């Protein structure tokens, strides 16, 4: 029976006993489905349970409760060495006493693949990660980036149903990391294997993933495509963690169809379109991205708030303006420097208007 899901986590809970004797839910009732052939990222700050989730899929940890299915098969009775998944470990975990060839060929050897075929497939795998002819080297004789590729080849050569990657680029420098991001993404498309990719780097997740699960404190807060997560964050944590977001606390004054009127005490009123229903007096947070704001540019039918510039930061491609409003609310505005000789739109202490459309902000309640 074909199954459209490569991996399913059903209400998975994993608890640890802390050294102080308390109980910690490292993964807290997580349910998610990872589709076949998908590049799926687990994104969240350090300690949110990404590695633990991955380790349960790999079979190194068993869930306290809940189910993990791989290709539709329940995994609770299947130990790590029998699962159709392979892992690229955070610190690579190459075998130091073996050559590159022995490292990459290890999985095939365990499966009983003969020596001739093994060595052919190892060469193939080395070519795939663009390190041909490295067979006889030892792990210690390789640079970090090379070790990373060998670890990748060692996993991929087994043609697993699912490849698990735990912050595989974490130890590389920025330039190499960017290179490898593209390479990994291309590779994933070529081999068509489901990738589950753990990272704490939101930019990395946005660039590479088909879908992202944002995790915090053991919970999966939102699962969706990068643009969904970015444009329609489900809550303040996601909005804040992915990209940059301005938050302004206010109180709902009323709702007219889709348009919600929010009072920002002291700073004025804003009108925001939302498909949700709000009640008057409800506390909400108006969340809006800096690049959706315009400085000194009236938006017709939109919101135009008057405030004072607090700081101006020139960062080459953009200039950032921090604008404070009478009620204490603050917005960061990002203006692209399109014209080469573009003068600053405003200076510190200038009185300015910040304009944005009614569809730009999100109203978040949690």
């Amino acid at each position, binding site marked *: 029976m074909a199954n459209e899901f490569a991996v399913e986590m059903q209400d998975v809970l994993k608890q640890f006993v802390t050294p102080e004797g308390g109980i910690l839910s490292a993964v807290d009732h997580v349910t998610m489905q990872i589709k076949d052939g998908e590049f799926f990222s687990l994104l969240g700050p350090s300690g949110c349970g990404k590695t633990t989730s991955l380790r349960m899929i790999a079979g190194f940890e068993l869930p306290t409760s809940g189910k993990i299915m791989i290709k539709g098969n329940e995994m609770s009775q299947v130990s790590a*060495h*029998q699962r159709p998944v*392979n892992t690229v470990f955070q610190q690579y*975990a190459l075998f130091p006493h073996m050559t590159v060839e022995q490292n990459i060929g290890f*999985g095939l050897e*365990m499966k009983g693949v003969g020596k001739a075929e093994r060595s052919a497939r190892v060469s193939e795998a080395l070519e795939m990660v663009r390190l041909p002819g490295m067979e006889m080297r030892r792990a210690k004789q390789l640079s970090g980036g090379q070790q990373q590729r060998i670890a990748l080849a060692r996993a991929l050569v*087994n043609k697993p149903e699912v490849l698990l990657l735990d912050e595989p680029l974490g130890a590389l420098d920025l330039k190499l990391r960017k290179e490898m991001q593209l390479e990994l993404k291309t590779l994933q498309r070529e081999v068509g294997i489901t990738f589950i990719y753990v990272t704490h780097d939101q930019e990395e997740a946005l660039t590479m993933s088909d879908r992202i699960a944002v995790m915090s404190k053991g919970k999966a807060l939102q699962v969706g495509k990068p643009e969904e997560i970015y444009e329609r964050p489900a809550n303040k944590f996601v909005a804040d963690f992915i990209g940059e977001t301005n938050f302004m606390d206010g109180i709902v004054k009323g709702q007219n169809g889709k348009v919600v009127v929010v009072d920002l005490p002291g700073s004025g009123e804003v009108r925001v379109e939302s498909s949700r229903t709000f009640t008057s007096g409800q506390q909400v947070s108006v969340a809006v991205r800096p690049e959706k704001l315009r400085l000194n540019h009236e938006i017709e039918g939109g919101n135009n708030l008057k405030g004072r510039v607090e700081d101006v930061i020139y960062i080459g491609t953009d200039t950032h303006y921090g604008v404070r409003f009478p009620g204490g609310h603050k917005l960061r505005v990002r203006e692209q420097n399109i014209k080469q000789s573009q003068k600053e739109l405003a200076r510190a202490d200038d009185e300015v208007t910040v304009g944005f459309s009614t569809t730009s902000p999100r109203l978040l309640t949690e």
Partner: protein
Amino acid sequence: MMKFFRRNEKRQLMGLISPGALWILIFFNLPLLIMLFISFVERGRAGGIQIPPVYTIENYRLFFNACATEFAGPACNPWLYLSIFGHSVRIGVIVTFWCIVVGYPLSYFIAKQKPILRDALMVLVIIPFWTNFLVRTYALKQVLASEGLLNSLLNTLQLINQPLEMLFNEFGVVVGLIYGYLPFAILPMYTSIEKFDHTLMEAAADLGASPRRAFWRVMLPMTLPGVIAAFVLVFVPVVGAFVTPDIMGGGKVEMIGTLINRQFGVARNWPFGSGMSMILMVLVMIGVIAYFRSGSERERSAL
């Protein structure tokens, strides 16, 4: 300037090392030289050596042919000493084998514990060193004696109706030696296992290796230095042991160590004792070097 500094440093280093070097020279190499000298002279009439010394290689010949002496009777076995040596090597191999086979899982078990418990367990391993070796061996003898703890226990449990003979035979000697040398096997193996990165076992499992195959292919090769150190630390002293075979064997189990000991005691044949000591040293050294060689060759051919 640089040169001066370097030379100065070198001199300082020499100054630091020399007391230790001197110590080794006086208390280690000098006795060895004296023994080498004695092994090439004739014995004195009442023990000691003939004065003035009469040089000879008879002491070495005697080891390889026990009948090459005026005291040889008609039932003389020319292989006597060689066979005792062979027997000692056999006991050495058995004891080392068991020390490693028992010590490895024990070291693993200790290394897996939380830091506090781990330290406590290592102290337990080391504590026996604080007690006199003789006292400990006699204590073990009480446990294994026919009227001893173990036999009484087995008897009470009605598992046996006759006491087991666990003393004054090879079994007793082997148990005594394992008991005495187990800590020497545990210490180096523990160090190796403790340093071993357990993620590698997960990597092996991830690539489809059962726990057993992961052990043989990854963990054992990577902790082999500890095992080799354990081998040397146990095998070398056990082959030459004389206190334990004496007590646990009750004079019925002859090892090369007890034989040498006797030459300096009741037999009063210092030159023969010295000769055997030199032979033992050289043979054990050759054995250990050969073992290392074959080990590194195995590793090289595995590439």
